[in-house]
C-alpha cells in the first residue's frame, strides 16, 4: 500500500469528527511533550536553589515559578509526566491483556468458566478500587512496578466485562455462525472475526481507562502511596503544594491544570472514538 491511501484512511475519521480531531491533536501535543520532556526541562527537576525559594510563576528563568526548595516547577511538572503516563500505560495494558483474555474466554466457553469469570468480575467491581489499592500498595510497597501491577490487577474487570458483552454480541452475529458452518476453526474465528470486531470498543475503553488510571495514579501519589519519595509525579506535587496554599498557590495550580488538561484531552479522544464507533454501526 502506498502512503497516501493509508494516510487518508487515518485522516478521514478525523475530518468527519471535529471532536476526534481535537482530541488527536491534543494527544499529539502530549506525546510531543512526553518525548521532549527531557529536552524541555530548563532546570534539574530535583536540584533547587534555596535562594530562589517560592519564586512566583512568570519569574524570569522560572516559567511556572519555584517550590519550597527553589526547584523549577515547570521542569518538575514535565519530569512527572513520563512516570504518570508510564504507570497508566503499564496498568492499562495489563488490564487489557488480562481482562480481554478472560472476557473472551467467558464469551467463548459457557458453563463453569463463564460463571467463574463473571462472578470474579462482579465481585471485584463491587469493591472500591482505591480502598483495595491503598491496602495493596501499603503492603507491597511503593514504586513504579508495584503501583502499575496493582492498578492493572484491580482494573482488569473493566475490560473483561466490556469484552465479554461485545464478544457475545459478535459471536452471535450471523457471519460468525457462517464461519462455524464453514468449519473455520475456533482460533481463526477469534483472531479473524472477533478480535478485529473488538478493536473499536477496546480502543474506546482503553482510552477512558487510561484516563482513569492516570487519575488513580495521581490520587494514590497524592495520598502518599504512589510514587516513592522524591519522584515528582503530579499527585505528589499536589500533595506538596498543600503546605503552601497561601504562600505559593501556583504550586497547586500547575499540576492540577496539567492533570485536568491531560485527562480532558484523553476523554476528548475517547469521545471521538466512541462517536466514530457509533457512526460505523
Amino acid at each position, binding site marked *: 500500500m502506498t502512503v497516501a491511501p493509508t494516510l487518508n484512511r487515518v485522516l478521514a475519521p478525523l475530518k468527519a469528527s471535529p471532536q476526534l480531531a481535537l482530541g488527536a491533536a491534543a494527544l499529539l501535543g502530549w506525546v510531543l511533550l512526553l518525548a521532549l520532556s527531557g529536552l524541555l526541562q530548563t532546570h534539574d527537576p530535583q536540584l533547587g536553589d534555596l535562594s530562589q525559594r517560592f519564586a512566583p510563576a512568570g519569574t524570569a528563568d522560572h516559567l511556572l515559578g519555584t517550590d*519550597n526548595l527553589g526547584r523549577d516547577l515547570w521542569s518538575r511538572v514535565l519530569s512527572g509526566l513520563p512516570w504518570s503516563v508510564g504507570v497508566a500505560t503499564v496498568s492499562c495494558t495489563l488490564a487489557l491483556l488480562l481482562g480481554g483474555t478472560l472476557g473472551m474466554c467467558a464469551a467463548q466457553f459457557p458453563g463453569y468458566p463463564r460463571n467463574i469469570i463473571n462472578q470474579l468480575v462482579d465481585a471485584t467491581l463491587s469493591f472500591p478500587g482505591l480502598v483495595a489499592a491503598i491496602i495493596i500498595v501499603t503492603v507491597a510497597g511503593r514504586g513504579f512496578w508495584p503501583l502499575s501491577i496493582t492498578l492493572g490487577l484491580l482494573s482488569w474487570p473493566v475490560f473483561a466485562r466490556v469484552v465479554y458483552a461485545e464478544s457475545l454480541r459478535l459471536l452471535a452475529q450471523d457471519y460468525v455462525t457462517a464461519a462455524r458452518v464453514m468449519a473455520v476453526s475456533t482460533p481463526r474465528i477469534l483472531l479473524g472475526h472477533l478480535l478485529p470486531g473488538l478493536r473499536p470498543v477496546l480502543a474506546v475503553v482503553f482510552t477512558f481507562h487510561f484516563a482513569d488510571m492516570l487519575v488513580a495514579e495521581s490520587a494514590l501519589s497524592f495520598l*502518599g502511596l504512589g510514587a516513592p519519595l522524591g519522584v515528582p509525579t503530579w499527585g505528589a506535587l499536589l500533595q506538596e503544594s498543600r*503546605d503552601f496554599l497561601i504562600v505559593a498557590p501556583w504550586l497547586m495550580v500547575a499540576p492540577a491544570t496539567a492533570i485536568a488538561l491531560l485527562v480532558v484531552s484523553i476523554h476528548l479522544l475517547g469521545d471521538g472514538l466512541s462517536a466514530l464507533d457509533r457512526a460505523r454501526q
Partner: protein
Amino acid sequence: MLWSAFVLGFAATGVAPQAHAEEAPLRVAVTLMPASFGDPFRTLGVPGDWVWRQIFDPLTESDDEGRIVPLLAESFENLGPNTWRFVLREGVRYANGRPFNAFSAKEVFDWLISDEGQATVVGWEMRRVSKVEAPDARTLIFTTWEPDPVLPNRLTSAMMVEPQAWREMGRQGFSRTPVGTGSYLLTDWQNRNGAVVLTANPYAWRPPGISRVEMYPLRDHASRLQAALSGQLDIIMSLRPEQLDIFRSRGFTVHADILRQILAFAFDVTGHPDSPIADVRVRQAFNHAIDRKAISEDILQGFAPPASQGSAPNVFGHNPRIRPYPHDPDKARELLAEAGYPQGFSTQVQVITGTYPNDLEIFAKLQQDLAAVGIDMAFRRVLFSDWIRQYFQGAWRTELFTLAWNTAPHNDALRPMEQYSCLKARPFFCDETLRAGLVAAGREMDTRRREALLHELALEYRRRAPSLLLLEYGHMWVVAPGLSGFRVRTRAPELYRVERVE
C-alpha cells in the same frame, strides 16, 4: 443555577443561630490522638500528652528550665540511695468526685510495677521500683531495687488515674472514659468534626479558664494549615516557619520553643559491619559534610539551631562546651580518603516524612551537601508503622535511619545514649567501652558527679559519631487573638490557663 441554589441553601442553614448558645469552645489543633485513647500507660510523651495532660496529672513535671518540680506532690526528697519520699497535695479530687491521696496513688503504682503493668511502657519506666508504701494519706515512699537518680523525672509520665474506675472498667473501658485529676473531663472522643471534646472537670484543683475544649488531631502540616485558614481553630500546634507570616498577618501570636529532641540519622553499624559506615572516620565525614547552619537559617528561619550532641541545652547533662561539627567538606573528603573511600560511595537512609517541619527541604539539602563530598545518599520513605517494626526487631534494611535523640520525658541526657549502646536488647550501635560509663551514670545519685559523668559521655559519643546529627527540634505554634495565658510545657499545651480577653 441549581448548584448555586444548593450552596445558598446550605450557607443559610450554616448561618442560622444555634438553638443553645453555649460558650464558644477553645479549638486546638494537634497532630495525632493518643493511639491508646485514655490509657496513659501504653506510650510516652507526644501525642498522648496532648490529651492526657488535660485530664490527668502526674506527681512531678519539668519546668521551663528543665528542672523537675512537684505537681500533684508538694515536695519530694531522697531519703537514701534506694528510697524516695513524696508529700502529696491536699484536697485534690478526681473528676468522679473521689479523693486523690497517697492510697489511691499507691494503688496506681502497685499496678504499674505488677506483671501486667510492667508490660506497659510507663510501667517499664518504673522497673527499678521494688515497692511503694503509703504510711498516711499524704505520704508516698518509693523503694527501688538499685539507685535510680531520675525517679522524679520518670514520675513526670506516670499519670494518676482513678484506681477504682481503672479496676472496674478494665483497661479498655477506662481508655474510652478516662478519669483523672486534670482540669478537664473527656466527654467525646470524636465529635462530628473529628475532635476530642473536653469539658471542665467540676472537681478540678486547677479550674480551667475556658470550660470547653475541642482538640483536633490533624496529621500533616497541610491539614492544620487548611483547617486554620477555614477559621475553625484557635490554637494550632506544630507549624512550619513559612506558614507563620500568614498567622501573624491575621493577628495570631506566634510562639516557638526548642524541644528536647535532636533530629538525627542513626548509623546501623551492627547490621552493616562491612559497610563504609562501620568506620568511625566515615561517620565523622558525614557529620562534617553537612551545612547545619544553612539548614537552620535558610530553611527553618532560625527556629531550630544546629545540634552539637544528643541533648538540647536545657536538658540535664547537656555539655555546653561541645560545639556542632563545623561544616568542612575538605575535612570530610580527607576523612573519607583516609577510610579508603576517596571516590565516595552510595548509601541509603530510611526517613519518616511529614512529622518534622520542612523535612523534605532538609533532606534535599542534605543530599546536596553529601553529594559534594562524594556520598550519594538515597532517601527512602517509610511509614512509621514500618519503621517501628524494624526498630522493635532491631533489623534495619538500610545503613541509616531516622532516629531522634529523645530526652523527653525525663529531660535527662542519659536516656538517648542508652539507645545508642550495648544495653539495648537489639543494639544497632554497640561500643563496649561505653558500657561502664553508662551504667555508672544510671546509678549515680549525686547530681554534680552525675552531670560530670554525662558531660564525659557526651564527649565520648561525639568522638564515636554514632549518628548524623542535624538540628535541635524546633516547635512552632500560634494562638488566635483574644486569648491569653497559653503556654506549653514538655510539648504539652496547658489549656487550663487559657482565658479570653477583650
